[in-house]
């Protein structure tokens, strides 16, 4: 699955996107964040407050805990500051 990172999340992970073959226990968008937080030091720091992130599956915002199903792209979005 392709994972996209934006803004300060992208900078903290030093990565704008990557492909990850998630293990079978990663079922929902929340599981993705938990997986990344557990993966390494940078992930733990970046996802210290997991609830602040919105997630999008295939460029559609979804509620926390939505199953990944057959989505191809997950985007992890820090609080937005446009306008």
């Amino acid at each position, binding site marked *: 699955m392709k994972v*996209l990172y*934006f*803004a*300060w999340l*992208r900078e903290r992970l030093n990565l704008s996107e990557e492909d990850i073959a998630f293990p079978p226990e990663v079922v929902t968008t929340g599981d993705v964040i938990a997986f990344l937080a557990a993966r390494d030091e940078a992930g733990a720091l970046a996802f210290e407050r997991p609830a602040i992130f919105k997630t*999008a599956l295939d*460029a*559609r*915002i979804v509620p926390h805990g939505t199953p990944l199903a057959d989505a191809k792209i997950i*985007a992890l*979005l*820090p*609080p*937005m*500051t*446009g*306008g």
Partner: protein
Amino acid sequence: MDIRVSETPFDPGAESNAFLDRGKAAGAAVTFTGLVRSLPDDPIIALTLECYPELAIRQLTAIATEAVTRFSLADITVIHRYGRMLPGEPIVQVMALSAHRQAAFDGAQMVMDYLKTDAPFWKKETTATGEHWVEAKSADDSAKARWEA
């Protein structure tokens, strides 16, 4: 309806006139223009907006559609830039057209309030002391919440 997300600069007045030309006999148009701010007590050198364009178009379209339905707008346009900009450059413009001025004001304002929290743009300021990401404001959450009553 016209929704645009682009790195290309836009001309606020030319966009207003193009918008009005499409339907000005409706009677009332409200335009919000957001520009790169640089105040004397908080000067900035540049502003860089990061964006997830595909999602931004989808979110702005949903917000604009909701405003059109809710306030029976005759037309709406949302233009949002991303990339690097200098103080005074336009970032965003929202234009709402209606037969009634209150609807035009409400439509433009609701789109701006939602856009601030729901459209995937992130601002990074460059100042004399370095660069930093702009923090999301809880005031923006409350501005949005008033439309949900």
